[in-house]
């Protein structure tokens, strides 16, 4: 791909030729684009796709994937950003071209580290899954063929011969009627995840896979191919990065994928210890709220709780000195000997601030980490209440937090469906009277929940301003726009802040 400094006229292809280059609304990105584009277009395409992938991520956390709500919101996003999604629309050349080129540009930005690659692959897969799910059934065959995937749909007669077997094997099939379903015959080794669990009918070395299950196989193929391609891209990256025009843009792109970075010291010193009690009930996520309550009541927390809560406090701006004072004061109330505290606990606090040992400045736990690792046992208060609490207890807790019965049942439903983070977000909405817009509010870490997370940091302002200039809304309008707590202390001021926050989010 060559880049010219001068803005060129886009190549104008006549109708048929345009259609031929992009016969489908989706693709596997097997061939890199070969046209010339301007730098400005390069940048815009990349940013648009990044916005799209971030929306994919946000929607995936806010809504259950595959549900109507998810689908319609995602479709709206794709349409808004002018990417391709539907097969049947007429002049789809531009959106498809945009889709094609922007994907390859982002590969450059996201091939550099394991984390970046994982994120990129995950969102691209979700996007592909969505587009595939709305592909009309009769277009699927030609799409697969054009993508060089050797999945042939079997004929009606072949289907009839094996009807009983296929129905008995594939749990994804709804009723007993096979006529309306497409069934694909693929070599058994390509359907590993299906046949190992006996979820597909095998005959003579082939798996007879109904359409619903083929999607999983296709996505696996896609993931494998993309993973390989990213590895290859990383190897040829030095050559690309030596082009000065591209380097700053690529760097900016790859850094903006991570949400707000709570490891930066910039937060420090913006919160005072006497605020914590009120903050815990007003702004803390339930996991931290319960930890704080337990700490106050028992004057003690076990290791898991100290880690989870301690790092959170650091994330919202407690300095090391404040943290030491905070924990010591509380533990002493529990009749702990001050010397014992100094000996046994202060080292660990300093360690988590990066002042001891290998001096890693630990970041607060992400939601996933809290949900998936180190479940709490008897006497522990850490973990995620939505994940680890007994539903009855959770219900009581939510009632004590004055959540409406309607909200409580919504939350409990989400918990039942294991959508813990979405449940937490619902809790936030209930306690702050806000409706989320297009999944723009997503909590990936409890710190994001702390609505009063200070943003006095200059760097963050710049990032927020930049992203607003490029039209990309920051993931968390709250954190980008709220003011620092130290300037407002009384309860009424806080209330005013909340109403300002609500209106800013709606906007």
């Amino acid at each position, binding site marked *: 791909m060559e880049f010219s400094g001068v803005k060129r006229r886009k190549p104008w292809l006549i109708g048929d030729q345009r259609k031929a280059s992009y016969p489908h609304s989706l693709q596997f990105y097997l061939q890199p684009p070969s046209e010339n584009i301007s730098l400005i277009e390069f940048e815009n395409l990349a940013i648009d796709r990044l916005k799209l992938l971030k929306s994919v991520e946000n929607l995936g956390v806010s809504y259950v994937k595959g549900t109507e709500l998810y689908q319609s919101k995602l479709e709206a996003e794709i349409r808004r950003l002018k990417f391709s999604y539907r097969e049947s629309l007429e002049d789809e050349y531009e959106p498809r071209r945009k889709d094609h080129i922007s994907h390859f540009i982002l590969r450059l930005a996201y091939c550099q580290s394991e984390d970046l690659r994982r994120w990129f692959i995950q969102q691209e897969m979700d996007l592909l899954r969505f587009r595939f799910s709305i592909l009309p059934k009769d277009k699927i065959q030609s799409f697969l063929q054009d993508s060089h995937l050797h999945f042939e749909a079997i004929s009606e007669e072949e289907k009839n011969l094996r009807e009983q077997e296929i129905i*008995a094997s594939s749990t994804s099939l709804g009723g007993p009627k096979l006529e309306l379903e497409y069934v694909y015959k693929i070599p*058994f080794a390509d359907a590993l995840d299906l046949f190992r669990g*006996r979820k597909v*009918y095998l005959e003579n*070395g082939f798996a007879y896979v109904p359409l619903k299950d083929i999607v999983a196989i296709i996505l696996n193929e896609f993931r494998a191919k993309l993973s390989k391609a990213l590895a290859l891209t990383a190897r040829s990256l030095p050559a690309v990065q030596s082009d000065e025009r591209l380097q700053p843009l690529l760097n900016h792109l790859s850094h903006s994928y991570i949400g707000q970075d709570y490891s930066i010291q910039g937060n420090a010193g913006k919160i005072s210890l006497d605020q914590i009690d009120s903050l815990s009930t007003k702004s803390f996520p339930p996991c931290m709220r319960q930890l704080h309550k337990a700490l106050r009541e028992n004057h003690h927390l076990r290791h898991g709780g100290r880690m989870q809560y301690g790092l959170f406090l650091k994330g919202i701006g407690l300095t090391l000195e404040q943290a030491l004072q905070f924990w010591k004061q509380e533990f002493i109330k529990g009749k702990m000997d001050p010397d014992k505290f100094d000996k046994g606990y202060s080292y660990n606090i300093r360690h988590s601030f990066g002042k001891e040992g290998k001096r890693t400045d630990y970041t607060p736990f992400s939601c996933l980490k809290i949900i998936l690792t180190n479940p709490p046992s008897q006497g522990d208060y850490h973990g995620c209440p939505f994940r680890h609490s007994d539903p009855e207890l959770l219900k009581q807790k939510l009632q004590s937090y004055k959540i409406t019965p309607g909200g409580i049942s919504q939350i409990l439903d989400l918990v039942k469906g294991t959508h813990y983070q979405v449940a937490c977000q619902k809790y936030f909405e209930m306690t702050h009277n806000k409706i989320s817009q297009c999944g723009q509010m997503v909590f990936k870490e409890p710190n994001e929940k702390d609505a009063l997370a200070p943003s006095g940091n200059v760097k963050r302002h710049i990032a927020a301003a930049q992203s607003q200039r490029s039209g990309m809304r920051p993931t968390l309008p709250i954190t980008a726009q709220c003011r620092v707590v130290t300037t407002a202390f009384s309860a009424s001021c806080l209330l005013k802040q909340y109403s300002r926050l609500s209106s800013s989010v709606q906007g």
Partner: protein
Amino acid sequence: MEPFDPAELPELLKLYYRRLFPYAQYYRWLNYGGVVKNYFQHREFSFTLKDDIYIRYQSFNNQSDLEKEMQKMNPYKIDIGAVYSHRPNQHNTVKLGAFQAQEKELVFDIDMTDYDDVRRCCSSADICSKCWTLMTMAIRIIDRALKEDFGFKHRLWVYSGRRGVHCWVCDESVRKLSSAVRSGIVEYLSLVKGGQDVKKKVHLSENVHPFVRKSISIIKKYFEGYALVGQDILENKESWDKILALVPENILSQDHFYVSLQYNEKGDHFNFQKHHSSLQRWEYLKKAASQCPSNIKNEKCGPWLEWEIMLQYCFPRLDINVSKGINHLLKSPFSVHPKTGRISVPIDLQKVDQFDPFAVPTISSICHELDAIFTSEAEKEENQAESDIKHRTRDYKKTSLAPYVKVFEQFLENLDKSRKGELLKKSDLQKDF
């Protein structure tokens, strides 16, 4: 049959490796037509010598090299490993990380010890004609699946020499399969799950996969003879309690269950004992298990419980570790079992029901047979060396080993035919005439 004395092994093995081991056929197998360069030369063998000395990474240049080494070392046991990227006997000269296992047959090992919880006649390394049926059923079930479901064509079943059977799947594409796919195949073939602490090891869902259905029909053919008569699994309270332990609590607690079973649990087993045979009790149990309890929701009514019991008592139990590793070493066909003296012979699939592990020749018996022939023929031959060479190629044919080598040769014929077919196809595509 001549009794086997392990102390005689060194002498017996000497004779076996000099006059009886079918080298030509063995090489023909592992060379696979010489289509791939160095395929045989890169194959790992391991030898267990006298006094348990174990040497790995043995490899050979050709058939005569193999013969010479085996005759020289006189291994008690021979294992076959993978085909590597380099000659295994030179693996120390290869750059670290470059020496990799690349291909190997897909293998299965079915061991009678794994069935100790469900066989009443023997335990541990012992086997008898009553429990051998477990192996017969295992071979039938697994072989059917390998052939009909997976499309594998070249499957060699071998008696392990003591308490089980092995299967070697030798199709060209199969030898290239990854470890993940091999694991997947074992998973597909597994139904009995759980160790000592798990009572009920088989759970069927409402949707019964064709593999399971077909396996059950095979078991049905043997169940009466094996389980109800041979093993007599409903013989007395102790044994039928084990079966009842597999009935879920919510069915067991239903009054009508006991009514159908004609079984009175309150110490008076009068009714169940009225019918003396396991056969009849099984009929009652089947009926009781398949009835629809009126007050239990969502409980499937039908033969599922009956099938689960049959499967737990008869379905094959595979060792996944043997199958999934490409570099895993497995006992070679025609190897001798050092404890029983039996030769690991191929099993004729056409006659699997008639296979009798106790009729398999031991090394002492075939050596004895050979001696007898030799003495009588040597009386006619003057030149010892000449008769040696002349005889070597036909010696095994004169012993009880012959029919088993024939089975092996049939297997090799099929491999050859397939190979020729593939080559023809390829040359047709390339328009090579």
